[in-house]
């Protein structure tokens, strides 16, 4: 490898924006995304000797960034959830003993495009995600926020696909109920 190829300032110049966009598409937080780019470039530079050179530098950098993002999510959630040991199952609270809904889901009148454009909705949504128990929060964030596929998440979280499906199902139930209460329901639905 030439000296020039291993110049992190050049990586920043050539791939900085791409890496930043990638991080933004997964994290939706400007400060955090730029931190992730910085960490990625530092790690890449330290690990330059391990770069096999059989992929493009950009691909290699994205690979490092991806790991940084997943690490960050896991750490972040773990730090906030130290006291919470139990994995709650919302189905017992949301369904009656006979299998019917306690509160029947209502029809939501909004569309994905408008929701994407609403900062307020994104805040309410994040608050609802933050309320999920740790495991549900990790797998749900990886699945829907980051957009990882099931196989990758199972490997990362060291769980079976059946377990993953149960966790995501519980997360969706809890999240839907939280959003109906805090966003779609009540006075907003006029």
């Amino acid at each position, binding site marked *: 490898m030439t000296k020039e190829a291993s110049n992190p300032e050049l990586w920043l110049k050539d791939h900085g924006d791409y890496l*930043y966009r990638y991080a933004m*598409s997964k994290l939706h937080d400007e400060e955090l995304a730029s931190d992730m780019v910085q960490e990625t470039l530092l790690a890449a530079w330290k690990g330059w000797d391990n770069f096999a050179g059989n992929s493009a530098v950009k691909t290699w950098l994205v690979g490092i960034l991806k790991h940084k993002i997943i690490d960050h999510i896991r750490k972040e959630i773990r730090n906030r959830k130290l006291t919470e040991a139990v994995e709650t199952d919302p189905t017992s609270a949301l369904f009656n003993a006979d299998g019917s809904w306690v509160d029947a*889901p209502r029809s939501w009148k909004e569309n994905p495009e408008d929701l*994407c454009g609403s900062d307020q909705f994104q805040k309410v949504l994040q608050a609802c995600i933050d309320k999920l128990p740790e495991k549900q929060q990790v797998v749900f964030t990886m699945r829907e926020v980051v*957009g990882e596929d099931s196989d990758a998440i199972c490997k990362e979280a060291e769980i079976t*696909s059946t377990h993953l499906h149960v966790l995501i199902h519980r997360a969706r139930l809890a999240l839907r109920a939280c959003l109906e209460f805090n966003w779609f329901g009540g006075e907003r639905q006029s």
Partner: protein
Amino acid sequence: MNHFCKEASQLQSDKFERDLTLMEKIRLRIHLTICSACKNYADNLKLLNGFFHGRRKAAGIDENITLSEQDRERIREALKKDSTNS
């Protein structure tokens, strides 16, 4: 009488994660035609799925999303500092 709603909600989530079996598909489809609560649940999940998908896609391709000059400068400094330390 036992309701299928609880089971149906698991299947509705699974639909985004795996292929349902033929039997599961049929039971779910029949249930959704007679249960408006579960039909709403299906639409709610579809809306959320569309939202998450749209948000990921939008941020990944938006050329207006770039590192600010301050961020670039900060990262350059960090790289320099690191190179003098090691």
